[in-house]
């Protein structure tokens, strides 16, 4: 029986049998669909990537007002296009480690303050110029410069100086940071000739593809870069990226076979889409989370009992069920989950109306609590707010919901009003997440979490190269945020993408959805 199955799966891999018939025949042999699928994907992998063909991608989140400058990319479309023509020094690997891209080696001094990256030999830009350490230096100078508008400006703030020595690029930091390489995997930091200082929007890089046509917010066409250095990625001869912001239209494009993969299947329809013939849905856990944030320094939220009351008054399972339709996992009032390296789980906080009522009484707060929300703070935020209102009511806490317009939410409400809904898409490391939003001095400290002990631990963890000790430190910091902070984190959302059975090569990843936005260059067209 197994021989028969193996034979059949090889037939599929060689395209002599289609996937549907295979699953049917596997079922007849008494094999579950899940096993059959696994068998099939390993057979397809073993067969190896097929080169050539045109791979078509539908992406959510692109607009005609976007820029081609990698420093100014803010959405999925820009990230995917960056990954077509450009490459960073290092990239996240599926196991939570690092994949060496344009840096072939890296090393740090024991104090983690000086980092050296050896630049890969024999790599050329798509304009024919050879890649040098000076290009890397110029790129980081452009992003970290004083008048920079780069989205990566914040994460590069700890750099005190940069220089090159032959084919090595050296970064000196103000303070130790064991996570620096993770920060350099940022999607803005595409290495450009002379750092893109001459023409930042030229899309000249070392990536596996060369962009031939770019219509912002509409369509991008890229062809294989014949001089690309890494034979393991970049299989299709041509990649077409189409921006389809309408959810229904995006799924319909996949269903009618006009595209091979699409991002952001709405959670509501994910299970319906997975039943469509020839379509596979990938619901992948992520570090992204949907949150309710309180300013811990503003009345009435400066009262720890009130914060605890609200934290106990939210029903996390219900949120995952009804807002994410099961495509996610429950949160624990810290921004960190097992998507991060060096994570250890803390005791789960559950919905407990009695405890909530107890803390609410202890807080001495009278009357209702005002919660602001909007549609764009996260998908389903107004509904989630109503669920919160209901579960809090059972604990005798009255939540008043104020619906704010999408327009101006990020400038007028978020990080300004004391209690509102919001989202975070997660960062590469715990240090990056905490430094962005929980350090006392952080611009985006949207919970006004001011804790000296926490800050000290954060800096100490940066200098700590022993993983075990760092794990403990991060655990302690997570506890501080969880018990004392202004964050109510009910859920971590999955990335939900879908691919057609005309492409193969899907694999695990860290970072963003669609295989960290690498699916177009890592997957291949099978038929």
């Amino acid at each position, binding site marked *: 029986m197994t021989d028969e199955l193996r034979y059949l799966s090889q037939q599929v891999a060689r395209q002599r049998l289609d996937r549907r018939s295979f699953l049917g025949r596997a079922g007849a042999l008494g094999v579950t669909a899940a096993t059959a699928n696994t068998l099939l994907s390993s057979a397809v992998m073993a067969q190896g990537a097929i080169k050539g063909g045109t791979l078509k991608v*539908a992406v959510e989140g692109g*607009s*005609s*007002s*976007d*820029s*081609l*400058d990698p420093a100014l990319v*803010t959405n999925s479309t820009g990230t995917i296009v960056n990954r077509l023509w450009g490459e960073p020094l290092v990239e996240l690997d599926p196991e939570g480690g690092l994949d060496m891209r344009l840096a072939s080696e890296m090393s740090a001094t024991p104090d983690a303050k000086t980092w050296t990256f050896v630049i890969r030999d024999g790599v050329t830009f798509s304009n024919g110029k050879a890649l040098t350490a000076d290009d890397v230096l110029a790129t980081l100078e452009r992003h970290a410069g004083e*008048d*920079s*508008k780069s*989205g990566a*400006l*914040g994460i590069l703030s700890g750099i005190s100086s940069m220089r090159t020595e032959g084919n090595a690029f050296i970064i000196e930091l103000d303070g130790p940071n064991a996570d620096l390489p993770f920060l350099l995997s940022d999607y803005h930091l595409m290495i450009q000739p002379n750092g893109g200082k001459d023409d930042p*929007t030229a899309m000249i890089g070392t990536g596996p593809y060369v962009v031939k*046509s770019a*219509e*912002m*917010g*509409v*369509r991008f066409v890229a062809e294989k870069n014949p001089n690309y250095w890494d034979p393991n990625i970049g299989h299709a001869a041509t990649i077409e990226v*189409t*921006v*389809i*912001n*309408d959810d*229904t*239209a995006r799924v*319909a*494009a996949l*269903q*009618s*076979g*006009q*595209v091979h993969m699409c991002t952001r299947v709405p959670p509501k329809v994910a299970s319906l889409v997975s039943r469509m013939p020839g379509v596979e849905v990938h619901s992948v856990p992520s570090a992204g989370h949907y949150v309710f944030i309180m300013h811990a320094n503003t009345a009435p939220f400066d009262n720890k009992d009130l914060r605890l009351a609200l934290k106990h008054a939210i029903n996390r399972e219900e949120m995952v069920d009804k807002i994410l339709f099961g495509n996610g996992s429950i949160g624990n009032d810290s921004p960190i989950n097992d998507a991060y390296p060096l994570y250890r789980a803390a005791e789960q906080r559950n919905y407990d109306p009695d405890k909530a009522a107890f803390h609410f009484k202890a807080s001495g707060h009278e009357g209702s609590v005002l919660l602001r929300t909007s549609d764009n703070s996260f998908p389903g935020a107004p509904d989630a707010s109503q669920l919160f209102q209901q579960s809090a009511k059972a604990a005798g806490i009255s939540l008043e919901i104020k619906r704010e317009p999408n*327009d*101006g939410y*990020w*400038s*007028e409400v*978020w990080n300004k009003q004391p209690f509102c809904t919001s989202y975070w898409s997660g960062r590469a490391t715990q240090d990056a997440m905490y430094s962005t939003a929980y350090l006392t001095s952080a*611009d*985006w400290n949207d919970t006004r979490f001011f804790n000296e002990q926490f800050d000290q631990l954060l800096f100490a963890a940066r200098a700590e190269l022993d993983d075990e000790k760092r794990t403990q430190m991060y655990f302690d910091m997570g506890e501080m945020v969880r018990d004392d902070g202004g964050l109510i984190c009910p859920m971590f959302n999955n990335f939900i993408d879908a691919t057609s059975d005309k492409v193969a090569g899907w694999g695990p990843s860290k970072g963003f959805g669609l295989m960290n936005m690498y699916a177009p260059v890592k997957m291949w067209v099978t038929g």
Partner: protein
Amino acid sequence: MSLVLKLIAQRVSLGILLLFAVSILIFVGTQILPGDVAESILGQSATPENLANLREELGLNEPALSRYFSWLGGIFVGDLGTALTSGTNISEAIGARLGNTLFLAMVAAFISVPIAILLGLLAVRYKDRWPDKLISATTLASISLPEFFIGYLLILFFGVKLGWFPTVATVFPEMTLGARLNAVMLPALTLTLVVLAHMMRMTRAAILNVMQSAYIETAELKGLSSFKIIWKHALPNAISPVVNVVMLNLAYLIVGVVVVEVIFVYPGMGQYLVDHVSKRDVPVVQACGLVFAAIYIGLNMLADILSILSNPRLRHPK
């Protein structure tokens, strides 16, 4: 004839004056929008320092009056400026987008105008009988459905189930005319269903109005067939309101199809405008506003002129 030319010249100069007034309105309107472009570009990722950098670079610190005049000066030489968000040339971007929008509007008009007028004539011919009722009921039903719903229905049946037309109507310069027509078929059909009822009902009403006249009675007494009466005697006299409603719908097809563009991923003006409004990209919004106003004014002017030409009575106002 010189009287006609004079009338036309009058209309054109009035149109230009109106356009000038609109330019002031647009400029003032965009100035009183809440928020500012720098905040909108950076969104959640704004920090005070990169906000300040961006404002400086975008020239947002200059006074409004000097910005208006430099903008107006640019328009006369065909320079609409550069988009604040992406730094691209607005004239070029609008040129391509406007071409796409006009193409889609034209295809939709080529399908819908003849059908609407024909259905209108049929409705008059069979007034108050079942063909009239059927035509009115179906066209009114289609105008009552929201555009996005019609779009989804067409996608479901013609795109997904039957596979006749692509559900994604993205067009690009390298496409052949045939491929282009195939690509825009679903959005064009959606638009047709949206505008059909209005034009059909108007044709029907205008002709019915004329049908009360004495000369129609004369034609009937002459023994002409009823369709010939409608075609030869009623329609030419009803042309003025029909032209007006057709132009109104043409203008709608050009400036009001954002929803259809989004659903079918069609790279037209509407999506371009909305993208930039949401990012407070004022120069683009102003340019789009001006282009739309020019189209509206132009089409209305055309409707006026056609009415005047078609009706000798209007040429000699008392």
